[in-house]
């Protein structure tokens, strides 16, 4: 199981903190959210868990760039996201790993966070290995020819649960969930031919 992502929100406004927390808690990725009141305060939440995502108002950085750069070096696994609702110098924004605007819809906000989650977490791993493994290819080929999970499990000598896990990974890597959609993928990738389908 994936461990919750440690997220620190450094933001003066309670309204924005609550709103962001709410959006992030519904992202589908387990998260642990803390509220920090300053850049120094933020650091307290990083120490306990070195892989963290900090969503921070650039306001806290603009007069503390030295301290900010030091923190980035001290905690290389931490990712910094600017939460923007005023105009800032682009050079300031470029110090961050990513930025979110206050007007971004929730799916964009979640997308930014997911993209930036420090490597080592499950979500990141599957994103990086886009090509299917040999076993996943086996499962996909059988799936596309119309076999049920149980039949695939018997044929490959694996458990039904393993088949389900492979299917989940296939869908995560390709972005395709339905069997008919995966069949098209298999044809496009030349993993099966239409003749296989007709059998």
């Amino acid at each position, binding site marked *: 199981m994936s461990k919750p992502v440690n997220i620190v929100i450094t933001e003066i406004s309670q309204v924005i903190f609550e709103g962001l927390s709410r959006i992030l808690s519904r992202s589908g990725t387990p998260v642990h959210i803390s509220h920090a009141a300053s850049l120094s305060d933020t650091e307290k939440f990083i120490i306990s868990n070195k892989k963290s995502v900090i969503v921070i108002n650039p306001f806290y950085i603009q007069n503390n760039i030295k301290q900010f750069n030091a923190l980035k070096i001290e905690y290389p696994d931490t990712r910094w996201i600017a939460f923007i609702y005023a105009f800032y110098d682009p050079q300031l924004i470029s110090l961050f790993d990513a930025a979110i605007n206050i*007007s971004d819809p929730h799916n964009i906000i979640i997308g930014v966070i997911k993209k930036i989650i420090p490597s080592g977490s499950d979500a990141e791993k599957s994103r990086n290995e886009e090509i299917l493994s040999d076993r996943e290819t086996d499962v996909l080929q059988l799936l596309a020819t119309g076999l049920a999970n149980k039949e695939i499990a018997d044929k490959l000598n694996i458990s039904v649960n393993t088949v389900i896990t492979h299917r989940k990974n296939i869908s995560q890597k390709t972005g395709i969930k*339905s069997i*008919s*959609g995966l069949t098209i993928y298999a044809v*496009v990738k030349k993993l099966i031919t239409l003749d296989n389908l007709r059998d």
Partner: protein
Amino acid sequence: MLKIFVMYPAANLYLTPDLNIAEVVLDNPRIILLLEHFNIYVPLHEKTIREISIENNLNFDLFLTFANLYNGISYTSPVQFSFDEVQSIINFLKKSHTYYTEEMYPDIRNTIKQMFEVNNYEEMALIDKFFKEYFKEVTVHLNYEDNVAFPYMKNLHEHLVKGAPITEPVTYSVKEYKEHHDDIEEKLNDLKNILVKYLPPKNDQKLRRRLFFNLSELENDLNIHAIIEDMILIPLVEQMEQYLKNLSE
């Protein structure tokens, strides 16, 4: 020194009753679709949201809530309206159904066919079949809403207006609607993924782009459709059911 200019998408403006509706449409073209679903058409002249709602016998809070959904403001908890809004909500959803079945799906199907005509290759035949089957599933779902779920809800509301408890045996509830309300967006998303990531290039970029835009447009409207059902309509009908149940006890 170069200053950063953040282009806030206009589509995220939170709408209020005294905004000029034509300006809102100019900022976010998708609002025109919202208007059509409410049976409102251009030209809009200088009317405000409040005026156009009153003119069309719509509760402007309801109008605003829907319009904000089209403007990218989402709701994460149920939004409360009076029971009398059920009819307007159903009319809106039915009108969207017509848009899907009579406009979007034929358009998409047509584009796929044209792609197939340009390049007669096996993947395209599969995509055509995929979409045809998908459309069949969607039609079943939409017909179910039009012929079973919506009439049931209307009937509930009529009883409520009369203050009369339902005497006929209750064989249906919105719970069933909730369950039936399956994820018709999944396959649409599959198709987008295949199109954008995997389908080999065949010198048909314009058709592909058109297909992709259409699929995205349809997906966006279906998303909002689902939010209206889950966050507004279903909670309201559940309350009506409870109210009528109390009445008969």
